[in-house]
């Protein structure tokens, strides 16, 4: 039996350490990992906890991230509770196996400490890695601060392992800004956390010798499509379980989470949509702007996958201008989240002025002042009744103004 870890009601932890404690409290059986900045301390601390007797588990050191996720797939198929962490290039190397994990319906929890993708090499935070894995069939939860990195990990096990879901879950946190920023955290005591997560229930586990199974079968055109459809259906329908788990978590901790987080959207005239720590910086800006009379609101998909298509449109309300911020180089298109939010709004009868900002690449600072400027720009669109800038712009970029596409709307 693992030793109890003494925890204060308030701890000052960074996002990585908070996530590592969540893995410890969930008593993860196997972490197969190849550490990479800035996610390293998560798996490093898991190993530490195992060595010091705080977890009955095993840390498996492998030779690459591809092998790390392969180890996770093997251990999960064998019937264990499994988790790991990675970032950036490591995530990119994992991608092939991410699809295997979701296709095999293995509820692995992957902490993605978001970091830019090279080249040029960069260790700091942006969402390139998150966007790279968005079609991999995983549930994607996004934490905006260290407390949430802890909370989302506990929820991730409950959601992914639910018998109606059985899908792997990524928990995203911003590299350095969350992962290496220590803040006040209110963790649960070990027994309460474990009780919330629950005892792992294996499904079709390979180590059940009374029922031998084959994982990783080949299916050609006669089967593949049906299997992928069933997987997609499970992912889309996981929303019910996600809502239930969030409700249970609120009952336990008082901390409320929703698949779409909205801030002062009830009467918002202008709104900005973002992910990660930027959400909180935007809230700070919106709060200050409200004092100046600007009805600003913030929208954030807590659950990036399954994408809350219907709820996004709902929270947009009667906003006249909506700006979607993508922290990933769009590679020859509008930002990915801009496209998804635009499509969600288009499915309603409403036609707010929707624009796109690319920002924060490679960890470029996003300040409260810049957030305020963007809100005010939305107000200018709303007052003019049309988009007064190009549709895609770049925030915090040096050099001549960069932007693409003019609005043809009048």
């Amino acid at each position: 039996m693992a030793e109890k870890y003494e925890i204060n009601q308030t701890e000052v932890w960074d996002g990585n350490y908070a996530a590592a404690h969540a893995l410890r409290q969930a008593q993860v059986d196997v972490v197969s990992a190849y550490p990479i900045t800035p996610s390293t301390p998560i798996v490093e601390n898991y190993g530490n906890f195992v060595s010091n007797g705080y977890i009955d588990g095993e840390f498996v050191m492998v030779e690459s991230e591809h092998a790390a996720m392969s180890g996770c797939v093997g251990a999960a198929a064998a019937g264990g509770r499994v988790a790991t962490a990675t970032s950036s290039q490591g995530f990119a190397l994992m991608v092939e196996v991410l699809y295997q994990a979701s296709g095999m319906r293995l509820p692995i929890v992957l902490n993605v400490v978001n970091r830019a993708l090279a080249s040029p090499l960069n260790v700091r935070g942006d969402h390139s890695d998150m966007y790279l894995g968005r079609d991999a069939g995983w549930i994607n939860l996004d934490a905006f601060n260290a407390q949430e990195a802890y909370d989302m990990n506990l929820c991730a096990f409950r959601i992914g392992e639910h018998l109606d879901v059985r899908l792997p879950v990524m928990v995203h946190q911003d590299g350095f800004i969350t992962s290496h920023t220590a803040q006040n955290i209110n963790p649960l005591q070990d027994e309460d956390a474990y009780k919330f997560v629950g005892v792992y229930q294996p499904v079709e586990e390979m180590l059940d010798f009374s029922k031998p199974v084959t994982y990783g079968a080949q299916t050609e055109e006669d089967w593949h499509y049906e299997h992928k459809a069933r997987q997609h259906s499970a992912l889309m329908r996981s929303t019910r379980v996600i809502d239930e788990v969030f409700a249970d978590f609120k009952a336990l901790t008082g901390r409320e989470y929703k698949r779409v987080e909205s801030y002062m959207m009830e009467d918002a005239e202008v709104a900005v949509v973002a992910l990660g720590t930027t959400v909180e910086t935007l809230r700070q800006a919106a709060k200050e702007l409200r004092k100046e009379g600007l009805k600003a609101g913030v929208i954030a998909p807590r659950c990036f996958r399954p994408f809350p298509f219907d709820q996004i449109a709902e929270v947009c309300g009667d906003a006249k201008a909506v700006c979607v911020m993508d922290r990933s180089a769009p590679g020859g298109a509008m930002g990915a989240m801009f496209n998804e939010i635009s499509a969600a709004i288009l499915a309603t009868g409403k036609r707010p002025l929707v624009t796109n900002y690319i920002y924060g690449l490679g960890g470029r600072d996003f300040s409260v002042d810049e957030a305020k400027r963007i809100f005010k720009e939305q107000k200018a669109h709303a007052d003019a009744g049309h988009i007064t800038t190009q549709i895609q712009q770049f925030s915090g970029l040096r050099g001549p103004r960069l932007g693409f596409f003019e609005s043809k709307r009048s």
Partner: protein
Amino acid sequence: MRGAAATEKRGMRELGAEKLVGWDEVTHGVVINSFEGDAANIASLTSEERIYSDFNSYTATVASWRVVKPVYNRDICIDCQNCWVWCPDTSIISRDKQMLGIDYDHCKGCGVCVEVCPTNPKSLLMFIEAEENDSALSQWPEKKKKEKE
């Protein structure tokens, strides 16, 4: 042949002739069960005694793929197990290191068993599929004398 008897019992289907079902009926995570019921004791059972699941390739036959077949002659065999080791389709039936015959449901007629048989004459020989085994055995060749240098 015991292999042939087992075929009738299991009701073999042609490999590839699965029942195609809709997306809501396919297995969870493409996980395939190998056996029906409790298989905790499976290692102590012979393949004839095991109850394989419909998804197990053992319940499918490739007999029709064969143009020529190996025929086994018990009178000459020395039970060396060479054919059992080399057969790529585990179609040599052997129990307690005693050769019993060919599993004609899964043999594709590749002839490897004949190639590796060390007896003189060989204890396994290839015949065209239409030839009855009794008839094949009656045509078995004599022992070859070693040619002197």
